[in-house]
């Protein structure tokens, strides 16, 4: 049985997402799905001169998948791909239940999803945005060369 983990942070990001829109200036986009539950997003980033200048997502899915993607974008916009990778690792650590208090603080609002670690069935919902980000950036490449197609 789960505690009610639908706190205000989560429901607010789900109902009023800041980053859920198209992104015309995107330099790269990536589709991510959870086939078993139908969560389906497209993540768009504008990466210029080694900085994630802007980002957005579109799609549909449960509150956890949508809110988590929105919170993720709050965290990574304005950061370097390396910093984004670091957040991704912290987030994955958090939802698998092995994070320290200091690390949790770094995740800011994303820490509201910590209780997902007790809901194995929902971990993939929370992770969808982050896994899509991982695929999109293919971190090693981005670190070495600028993506500047747009």
């Amino acid at each position, binding site marked *: 049985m789960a505690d009610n983990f639908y706190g205000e942070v989560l429901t607010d990001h789900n109902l009023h997402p800041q980053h859920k829109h198209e992104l015309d200036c995107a330099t790269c986009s990536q589709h991510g799905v959870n086939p078993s539950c*139908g969560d389906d997003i497209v993540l768009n980033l504008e990466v210029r001169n080694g900085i994630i200048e802007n980002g957005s997502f579109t799609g549909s899915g449960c509150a956890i998948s949508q809110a988590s993607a929105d919170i993720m974008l709050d965290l990574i916009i304005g950061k370097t791909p390396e910093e984004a990778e670091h957040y991704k690792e912290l987030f994955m650590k958090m939802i698998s239940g092995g994070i320290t208090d200091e690390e949790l603080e770094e995740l800011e609002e994303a820490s509201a999803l910590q209780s997902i670690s007790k809901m194995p069935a929902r971990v993939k919902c929370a992770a969808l945005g982050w896994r899509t980000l991982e695929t999109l950036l293919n971190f090693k490449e981005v670190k070495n060369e600028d993506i500047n197609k747009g």
Partner: protein
Amino acid sequence: MMNKELLSKQNFPVFDAYPGLAYLDNSATQQKPRQVIEAVNRYYCEENANPLRGLYELSVKATDAYEGARTAVKGFIGAKSEKEIIFTRNASESLNLIAYSWGRENIKADDEILVAVSEHHSDLLPWQILAKQKGAVIRYLECSQSGEYTAQALRKALTPKTKLFAVAQISNVFGRLNPIKEFTDICHENKTVIVCDGAQSVPHIPVDVQELGVDFLAFSAHKMLGPMGMGVLYGKEELLEKMPPFLSGGEMIEYVTREGATYAELPHKFEAGTVNAGGAVGLKAAIDYINELGFEAIERREDELTKLAFEGMKKIPYVNIIGADDPHDHHGILTFTIEGVHPHDIAAVFDSENIAIRAGHHCAQPLHQFLGVQSTARMSLAFYNDEKDIERFVSVLGSVRRKMGYGG
């Protein structure tokens, strides 16, 4: 035991372990009464040996237990003979058996297989694969938005090339009862074989295969109080007789040489390897339980609870029930959406209140595409649920939108 006791949750030990659980996912699998668990236990404690094999007393006992279950199934669905009852792992395996064995012999290039659009993936994928292998064509029988299929639509959909029609007696999404007897008559006029998925009907209404006239019927023990890993395929003897074996191995042969084999008689031709005797015994105990209770009592109780849930749901704004507008047409299955809330979030809110419901596409993705929704939530009840379960369900349903951050 009195009917009232048989209807009670108290016979189901899982509720001793989870006393506060409102279990409303019965279409996925039902809980098991003590009588079934004890029968399986007794088999392994007192009668276990490899059935159909050993020439000693215990093996004879095991064989009797296993074959006794077959006789019970025969009586339960009104088959003509034990030869028409094949034991499988579940309804999915039963349907696959038909596709592989009957299908490979009888489906040819350009033949058509007609499938009801609301079918469970188990009654769709075997036909899709078969059609691909044979160069045959899959066509769909469409239903109304509320899940109704008409005889007229079936007549129109059948062509001289339609070799098989696959349809559930009760859809696992709509809960609506399809007029199978009428469909059978129409199919047979067209020389089309009819396969009926009884997974959601056999546990809830009396099913008589001779009355329905269907060529094949598939169902699972675990959806009708019985153990998992046990399923049934009913087939008309004249069809089964001509079909090649599905799996090969021990117990399905008559005589084997270096070059080949002759196969065992029905039904053992289709039961390769060591069988699930414990499962068969459990299935028989489940049938005994249902027979003692009687379908009249089961239907009355489930209808009563469905009505209570349906009426409660209707009063809540933003809740949309999929299917018929009459609770009597739902047979304990109420699939729904809540405006603005994803079904997985709905199920999670229910889980936080110790109520088990299902969310997703219920293994019926083509149907969800047809309905224009990605996924739905579903509550499905059984006779051992009670008014309190339903009242809690309705009350939590009314709180979902607020918990998801909607005002008012």
